[in-house]
């Protein structure tokens, strides 16, 4: 622990931290309706609610009321100016869950600087891949400065060097700067608000540029129409603040509605998933979100403790970030019913960073709705035909209905030719409205590829409409979804191709649906090795780079040279490779197969 952290803890103990109350008594709750983030914070700061940060072991570590946050943001704004940053400059900040990140993010709002929340590394052996990712993001953002914790400073310096970013400040160094005395000019209603880097691969990161008006529209929709927040609400989050669901859903939205939030960091959750539920019980929390896998993890880890908890106040248990899995929700609901958890609290929703965060919410007051359809019709005719009750389980597919689109926004499902489809016809999902990003930062070709002249965003997801609600069935793009994370197959391929003696085009990565409905990652590698030892070495090295770069378990399958399919334009066909794999067309390379190749091998050696 750093000297500073020890000192902070000692100070916290001396102050006898008291968490912020659930609601303001002397300030009317306003669910958004402001012009800018700074204006929202100015209002929230008149009350007594705010953010509470808990340690990995569940003790209250920092309390940051919105009033304190505003003061620290204002002084941080002046220090950012002292650091030589000019209006409109991009400020990358490592989004570790804590008061330091908040001071910088909101400080940027008052100084007219564009914050770019960036990830930290969580993987064992993940250092090199992380540095590469940081370099890519800093380059794409044309960042003028990076603000980091002391712990990560070494990694960040390496990453920044690759991007040519020279201004690297630890939070301590930033806070030690003098406060500039110039008149601060906060962002106005027509300005940008921040850049979100949860989109795009490591090799080609795309920054989602969100304006003040987009964040105003989306947070108001979340608070007023989606969650229907009241002064009785208290939020809880372990979601990463560099991700849209963490940043927009559980930092910006609550602040815009003067709602108190209790936080644990994402690594704390990953280490002790049950801590999420224990602290929600202690705080009588009413709103919390997670991808399906988080519910799965928590239900499996709670064991006998469930009976000691009180989750009866939890009225909105949101699910987003991956395919909503009804089986996981049922198991969670059953396991936690002894703690008073109500199945009706589950709230499937749909969204993406390109739409700030939220697109649709299911009705918060109703139980989840599951649509069970005929699998054959789904596969063959692209129609979601309701299954009959007599159909066998393996002849049907069940999808969770993800609710109505936010008011003021539009959603349409279209076929390949762009024609709008009717209810129960499966096609590509498009959305339009005030929450959409203004584009990918400094990347107009990528922006034009997803936002058409008619203003509709191609979400890349497939689905169908049902009585005005959206049902997501899968996605059109190659993206792999694992534990709520987006993994780009290009990143896995790119990393694996650097293993000797592989070349570009030797690797195809894709997801196949596992038994549990989640994505299983398959990595096909063209193998020219001939000895059993070399084959095993290649398999081991590819597995290692995939783990270190993507942090995901995978099946590495070695296939013969020249067996991966390519498109007519010479690009690797991931879909083709997947189809070949699923239908069992690949003959896996193994040492025993080498005997067959022996004559050819000997001939080559002569």
């Amino acid at each position, binding site marked *: 622990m750093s000297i500073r952290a020890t000192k902070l803890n000692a100070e916290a103990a001396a102050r006898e931290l008291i968490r912020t109350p659930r609601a303001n008594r002397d300030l009317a709750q306003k669910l958004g309706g402001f012009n800018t983030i700074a204006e929202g914070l100015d209002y929230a700061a008149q009350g007594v609610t705010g953010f509470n940060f808990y340690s990995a072991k569940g003790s209250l570590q920092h309390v940051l009321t919105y009033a304190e946050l505003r003061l620290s943001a204002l002084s941080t704004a002046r220090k950012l100016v002292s650091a030589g940053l000019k209006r409109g400059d991009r400020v990358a900040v490592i989004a570790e869950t804590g008061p330091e990140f908040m001071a910088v993010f909101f400080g940027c709002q008052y100084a007219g600087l564009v914050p770019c929340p960036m990830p930290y590394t969580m993987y064992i052996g993940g250092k090199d891949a992380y540095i590469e990712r940081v370099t890519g993001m800093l380059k794409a953002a044309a960042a003028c400065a990076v603000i980091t914790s002391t*712990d*990560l400073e070494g990694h960040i310096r390496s990453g920044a060097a690759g991007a040519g970013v020279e201004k690297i400040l630890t939070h301590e160094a930033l806070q030690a700067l003098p406060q500039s005395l110039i008149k601060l000019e906060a962002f106005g209603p027509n300005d940008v608000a921040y850049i979100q880097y949860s989109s795009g691969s490591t090799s080609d990161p795309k920054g989602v540029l969100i304006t003040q008006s987009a964040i105003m529209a989306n947070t108001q929709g979340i608070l007023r129409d989606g969650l229907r927040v009241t002064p009785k609400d208290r939020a809880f989050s372990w979601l990463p603040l560099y991700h849209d669901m963490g940043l927009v859903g559980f930092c910006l939205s609550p602040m815009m509605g003067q709602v108190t939030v209790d936080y644990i960091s994402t690594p704390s959750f990953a280490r002790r998933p049950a801590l999420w539920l224990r602290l929600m019980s202690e705080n009588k929390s009413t709103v919390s979100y997670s991808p399906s896998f988080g519910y799965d993890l928590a239900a499996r880890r709670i064991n006998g403790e469930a009976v000691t908890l009180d989750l009866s106040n939890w009225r909105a248990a949101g699910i987003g970030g991956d395919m909503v899995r009804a089986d996981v929700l049922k198991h969670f609901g059953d396991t936690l019913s002894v703690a008073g958890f109500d199945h009706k609290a589950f709230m499937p929703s749909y969204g993406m960073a390109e739409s700030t965060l939220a697109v649709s919410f299911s009705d918060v007051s109703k139980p989840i709705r599951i649509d069970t359809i005929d699998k054959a019709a789904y596969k063959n005719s692209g129609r979601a035909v309701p299954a009959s009750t007599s159909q066998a389980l393996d002849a049907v597919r069940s999808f969770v209905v993800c609710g109505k689109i936010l008011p003021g926004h539009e959603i349409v499902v279209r076929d390949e030719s762009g024609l709008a489809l009717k209810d129960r016809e499966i096609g590509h999902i498009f959305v339009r409205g005030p929450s959409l990003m203004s584009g990918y930062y400094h990347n107009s070709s990528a922006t034009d590829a997803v936002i058409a002249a008619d203003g509709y965003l191609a979400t890349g997801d497939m689905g169908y409409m049902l009585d005005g609600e959206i049902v997501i069935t899968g996605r059109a793009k190659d993206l792999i979804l694992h534990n709520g994370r987006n993994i780009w197959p290009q990143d896995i391929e790119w990393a694996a191709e650097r293993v000797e003696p592989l070349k570009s085009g030797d690797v195809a990565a894709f997801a196949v649906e596992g038994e549990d409905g989640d994505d299983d990652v398959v990595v096909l590698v063209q193998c020219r090795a001939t000895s059993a030892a070399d084959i095993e070495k290649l398999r081991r090295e590819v597995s*290692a780079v995939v783990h270190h770069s993507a942090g995901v378990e995978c099946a590495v399958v070695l296939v013969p040279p020249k067996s991966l399919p390519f498109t007519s334009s010479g690009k690797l066909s991931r879909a083709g490779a997947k189809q070949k794999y699923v239908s069992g067309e690949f003959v896996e390379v193994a040492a025993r197969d080498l005997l067959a190749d022996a004559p050819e091998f000997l001939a080559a050696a002569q």
Partner: protein
Amino acid sequence: MTQSTINQICKLLEPFNTERKALTAETDISADLNIDSVAVMDFVMEVEDHFDIEIPLNVVSETRSIGDLAAVVEARTKKVLLP
């Protein structure tokens, strides 16, 4: 780095070693054992609790093998024992 630390780590790692691979100081924890990132975090917590130490994320990211982890554990337990 002592064999005792390595043995203790191997014991903590056993529940995560679903493919029953042989564990040595050279074993690459995530890659050789095919453990995903969430399970690795869980294992790191077991190590922290067992040895009563904290391993910051930047150190986790620089740790690959069981031997690396044993060295981290020993460096951190020594620090705690110093007056």
